[in-house]
């Protein structure tokens, strides 16, 4: 649709026309700001915890566990240098053999959600699928934060 609009604008005398083909979906999936009636409603991106601990593939599980428990977390997102999500460690994984490298201990390829998803929808999904936490990422897989089920339910309730 935007392609036809771009061509139409040229016929109407505009000489410098650009077509953002990936569109609004791409923009919102990257967590970029929007305006409108939905913008005031909480979404996964803003409710997610940005201070979630991260770990690298080559770290030792015992070291990571000690580090994250000290700051009160029971979940860790495994990322690379680009903050792309590679795996997740929840309580079950954190309790594995402390000598394991993260790469072997983690849950690889966890389901992720985009920042623009409405928090009410996230609360229902996480409850229905018994997810304690879910990584929120941009469309290119970069970590935005970790959404906790308790945060999603509480925020959705406040909006009801």
């Amino acid at each position, binding site marked *: *649709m*935007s*392609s*036809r*609009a*771009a*061509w*139409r*604008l*040229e016929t*109407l*005398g*505009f*000489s*410098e*026309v*650009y*077509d*953002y*083909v*990936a*569109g*609004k*979906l*791409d*923009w*919102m999936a*990257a967590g*970029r*700001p*929007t*305006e*409108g*009636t*939905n*913008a005031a409603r909480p979404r996964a991106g803003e409710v997610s915890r940005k201070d979630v601990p991260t770990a690298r593939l080559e770290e030792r599980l015992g070291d990571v566990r000690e580090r994250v428990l000290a700051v009160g977390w029971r979940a860790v997102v495994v990322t690379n240098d680009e903050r792309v999500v590679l795996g997740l460690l929840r309580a079950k994984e954190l309790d594995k053999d402390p000598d394991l490298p993260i790469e072997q201990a983690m849950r690889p390829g966890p389901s992720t959600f985009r920042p*623009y998803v409405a928090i009410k929808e996230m609360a229902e999904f996480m409850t229905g699928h018994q997810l304690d936490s879910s990584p929120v990422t941009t469309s290119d897989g970069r970590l935005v934060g970790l959404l906790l089920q308790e945060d999603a339910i509480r925020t959705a309730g406040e909006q009801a």
Partner: protein
Amino acid sequence: MPKEIDRDQVQQLLDRGAQLVEVLPADEYEEDHLVGAINLPLRRLDKEAVDTLDRTRPVIVYCWDTA
């Protein structure tokens, strides 16, 4: 010929003063649109409608996705 651009190029053009136009129907625009965008639905894109735009500045059009 219109040039296809990505997200980063959108931001660069906006920094240069480009105009943003969402061509989706008004109800979709009202729910969510890029900051600063105006709404000119494709079906209403005629000479009168585009009088709101400045022909001397770049124009970026977008819809929901590549469809």
